[in-house]
């Protein structure tokens, strides 16, 4: 019996060692790093200084507000869009379903940098969007989409919504396959309208998946980097900068301060934990 157990442990050991070495060790090390400060290789422990610094660092605060703006505006819009699309595409009477599914999912397989660059060109001063608006006489002067702080945020939100809606839609589509048709049938016999079916059957049945996609989208938004760096570079004047980009700037753009960068990274960790806990509390099952 004991021998059998040992062999079992042996198998597990590989992954334990691997995970400890490549996950836990860096995590602990980064945590220790977050209490150090200094330029480049000259790091020294400074206690809670880095953590205090967060509170009066305007760049960090604008990175945080921007990230939350994206989160609050973009995630609900995307989740609702994905839900609507998936229900529409799940309708067996719809023609060319396969084509529409592919078309909406396609953005999710394009490279982040490639699509960001295309968005940047579309929304540039003489880009296709401005030409379109001018030719339709909706505006007379090109809109500075990328150099105006309000419009730059809108472009970022548009871009990530375009990129990730299809991805979330796939989860809903597959979950919809698992909902028994007889439930809808019973509802119809009881005289439920389509909208009622959607809110009273589809949404509750999809709840675990909605929770899952909300959490992954939240985490994804907190780590947003590629789009912002490539479309606006964080500008104009930090109006679109995200926490991840600030971490990058602290490590590689400015004179490197890896200690403070680690502190900011831990803020993301803490935020993810808190937000996920809230989402579980609000939407999750009791157990």
């Amino acid at each position, binding site marked *: 019996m004991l021998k059998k157990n040992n062999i079992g442990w042996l198998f597990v050991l590989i992954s334990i060692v691997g995970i400890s070495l490549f996950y836990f060790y860096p995590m602990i090390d980064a945590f220790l790093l977050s209490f150090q*400060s200094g*330029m*480049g*290789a*000259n790091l020294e422990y400074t206690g809670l200084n880095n953590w205090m*610094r967060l509170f*009066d*660092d*305007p*760049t960090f605060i*604008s990175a945080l507000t921007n990230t939350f703006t994206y989160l609050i505006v973009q995630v609900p819009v995307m989740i609702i869009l994905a839900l609507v699309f998936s229900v529409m595409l799940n309708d067996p009477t719809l023609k060319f379903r396969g084509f529409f599914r592919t078309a909406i999912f396609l953005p999710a397989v394009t490279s982040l940098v490639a699509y960001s660059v295309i968005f*940047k060109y579309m929304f*540039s*001063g003489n880009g296709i969007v401005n030409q379109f608006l001018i030719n339709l006489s909706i505006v007379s002067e090109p809109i*500075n989409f*990328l*150099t105006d*702080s309000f419009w730059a945020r809108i472009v970022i939100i548009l871009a990530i919504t375009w990129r990730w809606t299809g991805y979330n839609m796939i989860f809903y589509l597959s979950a919809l396959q698992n909902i028994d048709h007889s439930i809808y049938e019973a509802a119809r016999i009881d005289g439920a309208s389509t909208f009622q079916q959607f809110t009273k059957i589809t949404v509750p049945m999809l709840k675990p998946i909605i929770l899952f996609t909300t959490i992954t989208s939240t985490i994804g938004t907190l780590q947003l980097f590629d789009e912002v760096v490539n479309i*606006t*570079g*964080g*500008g*104009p*004047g*930090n*109006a679109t900068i995200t926490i991840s980009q600030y971490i990058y*700037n602290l*490590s*590689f*753009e*400015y*004179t*490197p301060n*890896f200690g403070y960068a680690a502190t900011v990274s831990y803020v993301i960790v803490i935020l993810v934990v808190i937000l996920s806990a809230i989402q579980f509390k609000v939407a999750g099952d009791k157990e």
Partner: protein
Amino acid sequence: MKKVVFMMLTIIVMVALVACGDRDEESVDDQEASDETEGATNDEGEAITAWAWDPNFNIRALELADQAYDGEVDLELEIIENAQDDIVQRLNTSLSSGTTQGMPNIVLIEDYRAQSFLQAYPDAFYPLTDYIDVDAFADYKIETTSLDGEQYGLPFDTGVAGLYIRTDYLEEAGYSVDDVQDITWAEYIQIGVDIKEATGNNMLTQDPSDLGLIRMMIQSAGSWYFEEDGSTPNLANNPALEASVQAYRELMEANIVSMVSDWSQFVGAFNDGDVASVPTGNWITPSITAEETQSGNWAVVPFPKLEVDGATNVTNLGGSSWYVLNSDGKEAAATFLANTFGSNEMFYQDLINEIGAIGTYLPGMQGEAFEEGHEFFDGQSIVADFSEWTEAIPAVNYGMHTYAIDDILAVELQNYLNDKELTDVLEDAQSQAETQLR
């Protein structure tokens, strides 16, 4: 049986994956390692590696240097092209972990970042003080490439700036090239307004995230973001910065600025003839001359001047220098640099003729190549003008936080354009800088 086959397949796949991973990661090391052994065994000379960016400029300069090298020690130079961002990243990650493995012997670093590397990684760079004659280089380059009396960088290209201007647009608005020589920013704006009225074109482009223009303005008045020590922020009560920020706002309010958000839009704007002037570093010349249809329609005049004490019509934007890492092969690398960029006057003629690169080695900055007129600029010998200005660039200590201040100031500049008080703008920037740069 099936199980055994499955197991074997799994193992094969795993081994293959591991092998692939290894190869990808270590290809650079392998290359270098094999080169090093080659150098040691073959007697072909010591192998040194160099990293730089921009194949048409820095890499070409290295190739020319390799050809020009005539030192006693045989050297094998391997040139590796990397994007500047990648070089910065790789230097930071390697040097902060305290290793020089996989690092080159020679590396190109932008002057604005030089102090940051020199101070953040003491002992990572090899001093070149004994290899070159410091006095032979332009003052302002030495200021940024040395630390505590030791010379670490070998100054390379000058970022001396000028005002590139469309002569045909000037004429349409009733001006001549003489009218734009040694002007002030106020005059520049007035001319810009007139040109816009006459031709409908804006005067210049600006990227709100890139404060290059402000940096050029303050350096032209001998000032910088920092005090002379390179670390005390000098933003509030800095008359040069105050005047620059005001000039910037006047430019914006005169409605003569095309907004761009990246390099290609910037280049596209003047290549398409959308803007009448480009105030920037001389390294833009190849991009200007790339649009052949505009040949003869451009001139280069001195950079506009601020109206403050100590203001001049010369300034600098960008430019970079060569550094030797403190690892095996440093002597060979230093010798190579000293023999070429550090002393060879003829080599500097080649740099001009072949790639139009203007160096900062003063003895190398004369001769035929410098006097020759440039057809594109209607016969103006722009190289001679630029090298004359190079010697007069006010020396400032760029310090180690140029880009951090840039980002702080970019935010405050937007606030200023939205009617925040100027003194508040600069004081807020100052206090942010003080809390951030510790």
